[in-house]
């Protein structure tokens, strides 16, 4: 383990200190080496690159963050919204990307279910399975942040549900970050044939206003007939930088209900990638976005239909107040041969101020015949007549605004099948909405 006085920043020396001072198999060391070279070779993204045209990184200082630091003697208080609300079968808390504590219903453990630190799992009997899948679907050469993640990642979480096993209650992962620290954790979720589970992930900042960095990767592998509900509630404080590559690959008849809460972050840049890799697989994507102050949240989604009779249905809804900026760029790609694919994408944004800005850009790329693909995007303002109508029924302007904004999100909230997650999202939004002043 690196000691306190070693350089653990995102530098050459930091890389050696962070990546190699822990026991790990050679294949992983080699993977890190290659990723690091790519990280070094690639330029910091800038606005001349198509995907970064709307996202300004000028204020981002990579070297101010630590890729690794020892856990404090006393764990800080973690202001989770979901721990008190969610009745779970398992819980893992990570601090700066590395495990703090975890528990799993012993009955599930006996059935072979795993919820643990990813690094530990490699050393504890899961090396073969993890080696086969780690960075098997996520492209770590995609950009500088993907390579940085693959080179530096520590801790992480590993979820495995064996064939035909059903986990009834959610497994919860709370990722907490301390000031100046980075979370470069990797999430690997594998559901074997016919397995079912709900995994909920929540991110929280220990400090309400100090800057931190998340540069993470999520890989979700669903074998035939597996069913997963996955929630990613990104709720960092508004000083944190969030760079995420998230990808799920679904084998035949597998299904995924994937909910994203895009709430926190000074700047968030997310690639969410859904691959319908087996016939009759189905993915539902729900996005709940709320931006305020000077937040910049950029979500790039790809629904990739590779096989026949696959279905994807994406709905992102966003509200913006103050000088915030939301970017949604969606793509449905249907490969030749993916006949009878059914793809849908939609993004609706509600502007709560004159100074907020939104770019919503849907896209289709269809190489197969006999498919059904539709898309839509809207951006609108709060209707002053709706506010007045509520006021004539005794509601204050703020209460009226909250009601109208909550109503705006209802369509996407109704699609989320986990009650406590829906309630938590509603509460967070209601808490943040201020009085609409046109």
């Amino acid at each position, binding site marked *: 383990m690196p000691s306190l006085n070693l350089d653990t920043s995102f530098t050459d020396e930091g890389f050696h200190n962070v990546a190699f001072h822990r026991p790990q198999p050679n294949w992983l060391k080699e993977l890190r080496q290659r990723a690091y070279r790519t990280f070094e070779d690639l330029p910091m993204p800038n606005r001349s690159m198509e995907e970064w045209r709307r996202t300004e990184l000028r204020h981002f200082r990579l070297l101010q963050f630590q890729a690794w630091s020892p856990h404090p003697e006393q764990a800080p208080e973690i202001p989770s919204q979901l721990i008190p609300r969610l009745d779970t079968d398992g819980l893992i808390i990570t601090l700066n990307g590395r495990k703090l504590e975890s528990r799993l219903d012993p009955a599930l453990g006996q059935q072979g279910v795993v919820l643990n630190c990813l690094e530990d799992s490699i050393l504890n009997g899961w090396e073969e399975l993890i080696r086969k899948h780690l960075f098997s679907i996520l492209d770590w050469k995609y950009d500088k942040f993907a390579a940085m993640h693959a080179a530096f990642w520590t801790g992480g979480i590993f979820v495995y549900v064996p064939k035909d096993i059903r986990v009834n209650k959610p497994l919860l992962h709370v990722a907490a970050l301390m000031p100046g620290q980075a979370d470069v954790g990797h999430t690997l979720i594998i559901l074997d044939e016919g397995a079912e589970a709900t995994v909920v992930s929540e991110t929280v900042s220990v400090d309400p206003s100090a800057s931190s960095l998340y540069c993470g990767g999520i890989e979700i592998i669903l074998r035939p007939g597996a069913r997963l509900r996955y929630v990613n509630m990104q709720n960092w404080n508004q000083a944190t930088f969030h760079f995420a590559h998230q990808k799920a690959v679904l084998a035949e008849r597998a299904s995924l209900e994937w909910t994203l809460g895009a709430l926190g972050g000074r700047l968030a840049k997310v690639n969410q990638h859904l691959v319908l890799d087996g016939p009759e697989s189905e993915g539902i994507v729900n996005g709940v976005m709320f931006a305020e102050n000077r937040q910049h949240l950029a979500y790039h989604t790809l629904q990739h239909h590779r096989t026949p009779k696959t279905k994807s249905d994406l709905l992102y809804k966003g509200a913006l107040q103050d000088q915030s900026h939301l970017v949604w760029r969606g793509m449905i790609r249907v490969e030749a041969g993916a006949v009878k694919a059914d793809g849908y994408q939609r993004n609706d944004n509600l502007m709560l101020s004159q100074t907020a800005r939104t770019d919503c850009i849907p896209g289709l790329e269809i190489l197969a015949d006999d498919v059904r693909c539709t898309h839509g995007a809207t951006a609108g303002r709060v209707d002053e*007549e709706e506010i*007045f109508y509520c*006021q*004539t*029924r005794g509601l204050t302007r703020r209460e009226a605004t909250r*009601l109208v904004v909550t*109503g705006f999100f*209802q*369509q996407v909230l109704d699609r989320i099948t986990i009650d406590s997650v829906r309630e938590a999202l509603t509460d967070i939004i209601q808490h943040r909405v201020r009085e609409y002043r046109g």
Partner: protein
Amino acid sequence: MSPETLSVIDLHVSVEGKPILKGVNLTIRRGEIHALMGPNGSGKTTLGLAIMGHPRYEITRGRIELDGEDITQLEPHERARRGLFMAFQRPVAIPGVRLADFLRHAVSNVRNPARKEGEELIPMREFRKELKEKMDLLRMDAEFARRYVNDGFSGGEMKRAEILQMAMLRPKFAILDETDSGLDVDAVRLASQSIAEIGGRQMGLLIITHHERLLEHNPPDVTHVLLGGRIVETGGPELAERLHREGYDQLRQKYPEAAAEEAALAGQGKQ
């Protein structure tokens, strides 16, 4: 002013700088029914919205008093909490907000005028029971309350939802803006009957209408005729009947000045 009255005193109202009302005077005592008639564009809806405090309707002169208190500067929600209500001609939809949730917020505020945002709502059980009673009374299906406020409602459904809100909020004074428009004969009769059944008589009502039928179960004590932004005649129920019979042309001849103002307003409206 005596208590339990709604008074409009020398009210001048402009919309986007254009004068619409030019000195309206009106006093309604609680328990009275007033009919407000007049051709399209004479300012009837403007009067209603100005009384409710719509931000686009600028009061340039005069005032509105409720039980002797000047409420001209109050926010719309403060007026509602003091007992004013308006049933809109074309209420807006609020997608995603269920009528029952909307009404629970409304009832909680209107019955507890000092309520601050975030404070307890009226208990769910008590609210549901009362809502069911009122919906039964109005012969409305319970499922209706689960729909989003005015979202995809037919004309008739909107009007009935407005009457339901009035029944739940039990205002001191209610303005009914063409609650009969767009309804067929039977639906107007039902609306008229419903207004009487929910206790319209105990309130003060200002009924804006073109139809005699809405007044069938709510015979007016006083009838006002608005023309070109002024009340040109005030009478009893016989005035309403006469206007229904004869239309407004005779009034225009009798009040050429107001008729000219009306024509000018209509011209502005077309620009």
